[in-house]
């Protein structure tokens, strides 16, 4: 029977002892190819790290937070001003939540551009998209909990739109997120969703996605360098990949802590109907793009339903992307249509969010909305096609497909 190599030093001895007792290098998880040891391939893992930080800071706040309209703001303010490191914990919770939304988006778009959703990973994409929706659900429900004038006003606008939906759908959604008890029922529902239902759903889907990742492995690289024998070499999960992930997590955590230290949160005033009348309701930045679309005058009043239908169709198409883009091509330069659509999508979200930030509460004339949205799409498409033409001319091809 072959014997294992003896540890060469004290650190190696400790690593081997821990491994032998915990069975960490037992092949429960498949080794990771060396090409996958780059931060872009770990955006999903960093999203999970962000979730863990949110869970820890959220549990600490739960010790003091009271989910009733009379005490939500008071208890939040108490955490801010009286609890040891309370303000810092709240600040880190908020910034990490923002980071989680950004990381989820970056993870999705990275997968979009390197087409990880191709066969056999179609179901991973579907599950991932549902998880992305849950992350937005976290952001939406968490926003209300401090019961500040800004958060409550913005949530009232969103909840008010439910009444304009078709009867059965509107009633079902209203029951789910508002219940029947007015402000008390709404806050308690949002709190329950935020701390129990959504975390449970997200963790369940994470298990499913990780199972599929182990079944399919990490997607092959699209570049020639990534496919070299050196880059294909398998790297053991313990301790190499584990330490790599811990390094990324530590750098991310340090970044969140530094942000929390340098830019502490300022709590807005408490919600009262009088105070709310003096503020233009404004959602948080990740929903500004949707808010800006709804401010276009063509979608005023009941007509907002048409905007929601359009957005639903867009995200529906994104959900079933693996079944729309069924070509075997994975390289960016071989997929001009979908790469251009992806670039337009990012540009539109960015432009609409920035525009919404600069024009709080202002109704947008229809012609202006069409000009900005259409103009952005036109310019990005033009730039994308020009770039493809340039790349292909350098590669000696005749014309773009």
């Amino acid at each position, binding site marked *: 029977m072959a014997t294992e190599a003896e540890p060469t030093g004290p650190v190696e001895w400790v690593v081997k002892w821990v491994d032998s007792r915990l069975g960490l290098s037992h092949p429960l998880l498949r080794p990771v190819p060396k090409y996958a040891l780059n931060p872009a391939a770990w955006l999903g893992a960093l999203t999970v790290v962000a979730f863990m930080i949110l869970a820890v800071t959220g549990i600490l706040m739960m010790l003091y937070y009271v989910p009733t309209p009379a005490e939500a703001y008071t208890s939040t303010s108490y955490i801010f001003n009286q609890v040891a490191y309370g*303000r*810092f914990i709240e600040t880190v919770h908020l910034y990490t939540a923002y980071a989680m939304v950004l990381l989820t988006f970056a993870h999705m778009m990275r997968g979009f551009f390197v087409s990880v959703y191709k066969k056999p990973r179609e179901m991973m994409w579907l599950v991932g998209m549902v998880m992305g929706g849950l992350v937005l659900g976290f952001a939406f429900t968490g926003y209300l909990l401090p019961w500040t004038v800004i958060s409550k006003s913005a949530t009232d606008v969103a909840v008010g739109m439910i009444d304009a939906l078709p009867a059965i759908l509107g009633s079902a959604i209203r029951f789910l997120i508002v219940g029947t008890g007015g402000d008390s029922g709404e806050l308690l529902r949002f709190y329950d969703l935020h701390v129990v239902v959504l975390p449970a759903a997200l963790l369940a889907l994470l298990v499913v996605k990780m199972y599929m990742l182990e079944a399919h492995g990490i997607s092959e690289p699209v570049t020639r360098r990534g496919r070299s024998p050196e880059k294909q070499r398998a790297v053991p999960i313990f301790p190499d990949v584990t330490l790599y992930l811990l*390094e*990324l997590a530590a*750098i991310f955590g*340090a970044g969140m*802590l530094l942000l929390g230290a340098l830019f502490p949160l300022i709590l807005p005033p408490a919600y009262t109907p009088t105070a709310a009348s003096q503020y233009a309701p404004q959602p948080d930045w990740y929903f500004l793009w949707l808010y800006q679309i709804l401010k276009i005058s063509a979608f005023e009043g009941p007509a907002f339903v048409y905007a929601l239908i359009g957005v639903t169709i867009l995200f529906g198409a994104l959900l079933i992307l693996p079944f729309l883009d069924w070509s075997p091509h994975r390289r960016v330069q071989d997929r001009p249509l979908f790469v251009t659509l992806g670039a337009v999508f990012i540009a539109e979200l960015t432009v609409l969010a920035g525009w919404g930030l600069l024009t709080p509460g202002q109704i947008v004339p229809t012609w202006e909305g069409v000009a900005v949205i259409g103009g952005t799409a036109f310019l990005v498409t033009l730039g994308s096609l020009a770039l493809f033409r340039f790349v292909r001319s350098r590669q000696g091809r005749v014309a773009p497909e």
Partner: protein
Amino acid sequence: MRLAYRLIVFLLLVQATATATLWTLNPTESASQAVFGTLLGVDLLAFAMVSYLYRAEKAGTGFSRPWVLTGCAAFVVLFLAVLVRA
């Protein structure tokens, strides 16, 4: 002693110092909370650098000086942030 291991020892000392200082802070003061966050960030960055140096030495590839210098620059930024907030 190899440079990597000397750096590891130095980083472990930085971690120990930052951790010890954390316990001296007043947890309700706004400035102390900022210092707490910054020193905890120093701890995490030091851990990341120790882990990187260990992996690089174990693989036999040697560490990347630009990455180590970036980490050291991050320490300088963090300590300056501590001084500013304190």
